[in-house]
């Protein structure tokens, strides 16, 4: 299936201006990808400038450092399964502590 991912972006190189960017990610049917899998795909293949917590990720819901607003609710990127073809909306948990895109300090 093809999943539409809408990401609230803010890049320091653009002066932090907020905007929304849409990506389309081909996900194998029934693969049960997480939101972090989608972001990995986008960052590695489509847009290297994307920021989300990744540098010390446990990927297993343990370190509790990958929090983001997922479809409006706060959750962990590595623990959120993308189940259907609805667009996935990803935003940072705080505007004031935002460093880049989904990363907050």
């Amino acid at each position, binding site marked *: 299936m093809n999943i539409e991912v809408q990401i609230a972006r803010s*890049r*320091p*190189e653009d002066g932090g201006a907020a905007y929304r960017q849409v990506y389309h990610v081909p996900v194998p049917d029934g*693969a*049960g*990808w*997480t939101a972090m*899998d989608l972001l990995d795909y986008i*960052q*590695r*293949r489509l*847009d*290297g*400038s*994307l*920021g*989300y917590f*990744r*540098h*010390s*990720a*446990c*990927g*297993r*819901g*343990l*370190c509790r*450092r990958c929090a983001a607003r997922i479809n409006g609710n706060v959750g962990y990127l590595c*623990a959120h*399964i993308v189940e259907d073809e609805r667009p996935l909306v990803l935003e940072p948990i705080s505007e004031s502590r935002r*460093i*880049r895109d989904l*990363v907050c*300090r």
Partner: protein
Amino acid sequence: MKGFPSQIDRVIDTDVLVIGGGGAGAGAAMGAARRRCRVLVAAKGRLGRSGSTPLSSAVVAMDGESARKMGQRRADPSLTPDRWFEQIVGHGFFLSEQPLAQLYVEQAPARVAELLGWARRAGQPFFFGAGGSWITTGRAIGRSLCQGIRESPPIDLLEDVMICELTCSRGRISGALGIDIYSGELVYVACRAVVIATGGFHPFSFKCTAGDNTGDGIGMAFRAGAAVADMEFLLFCPGALFSPRIHRGSILPMFLYGTGQIRPDIVDAKGSDLFAALPAEVRRLAQDPAWFKLAHAFIWSEALAAGRGTSAGGLFFDFRRYSSWRYFKGLLLTFMVFKKFYGRRFHYQHRSVRDLFDSIRRRGRWEVGLCCEYSLGGVVVDAGMQTAAAGVFAAGEAASGTFGATRTSRALTEMLVQGFVAGESAAAWSKDVDDPAPAEDRIEQACRKVLAPLTRSGGTAPGPVLETIEAIADGALGVRRSAGALEKGLARAAALRREILPRLAVQSPNRRYNLEWIQALQLENQLFCLEAALRAALRRAESRGQHIRSDFPHVDNGRWLRRLHFENRGGKPALRPRQPSFCCLSPPQRDFPGVLDYALDRRRQETGRLN
């Protein structure tokens, strides 16, 4: 900042810099702080919450005799320090540096007892298991270490700072350059000694380890003049989940198998039992906790090499022979164990796994695979954790030599013991030397190197390179290896190093949480470790531990009781076979037709001696 290049945003001065915030880093910091010197820990992640330490499942051990003396009535007093030492060396196919194994055995009781004390005061659950081992969770280990740091003389901490390069002056360490991952600032730490405690390297696409384990410390130490060794030896855990994706890499299946309450059949893609046709003695070996990982990795990889696996390269844990009643009983008993650690029903590693157990009830199977859990290779150290680079020490998974070709004893104990010794040695060293001479040109050079991917235009992006590295490792460095696949992998890795590494460029020039920049900086170390592992695996024309060559299946003690060192010769890794120290135990003189034959022989000797 006077005397420092203008690119540097922050300079910190300390005596001992510890790089890494896992168990080895925490241990080193405490070891050095108790010797009353200034200590700074710089960790890519958070203290006690990054690297492999919090992901472990987690068993720490000392010998049974010492555990009994500590009042553990269920401890096995026949597991004396001598017997434990013999096990470590024998199970490691005699490639252990025996003085390191001795140090491990001697200091384990003190270090584990200390950990138990911190755990008690931090309210973390540790339960005695068997022999001389305690079982707990990775999170509890991390929290106990933080308690230890709180109780220690002062230790400074820099979290989310990635150290990228060590700088030397007049032949010894003078400091290290790093980046603050969130702000992008360049941080220079001027110091007299460094402890590398950055964990292992895990190059495969299928991971049960954290994102931080990219072999940074191994690469940095080598560039500073240290040798590395044993890079061909990786430890694969049989029984990490492939799917569902959300649990991918979880080692729950192996843990469940180990508890023995519900032991599934292990079947191939067509449903045939891998173990049904094997001799009873091999089946017994595979049930023995000491040999479990080696025997399973051997048997699984044989089936996978014969094309019997799933399309993802996995096998199945099949529970279908259990009646519903037996299944529920087993499950209940298992979760009584888990509840002690995780406080809630159907939880493993603090996350609900109810979906997995429901899937068994629906007559499903678990797709599992071999997942690299630990790298035996790393920086070469002596029994004081000193490396060949003056003022550079290494400990834990980043170091090498304790276990030899494979590990059946506890890495969590290793990180505590070695961390503490490295910290003490680094502190003693820092007191003996005067302040390093300033090395502005070296620091400037390091700054230019670190900043290069941000300023290059039209280069290669790191993302696809990272995927190529994983593909090379998947294709050539699994349990079963062959000259053809290793040569192919090596040629691809060398081409990446020559042609791509110098051209890496990132999209965003801004340094704040610039993931691509971090990836670009890590790639040099990942590629160094990968290439060293491929070269050593190709050179070692025999099988040993979980390095199984399909073209050289025998254990060749005549030629290969050697560790493969990479020494820094003018910046290039020169491969040198070196005999490990056989100071206490002599190795067997004869060869074995395969690694299982060696394991069966050792097991016969060990059980024979007990009876």
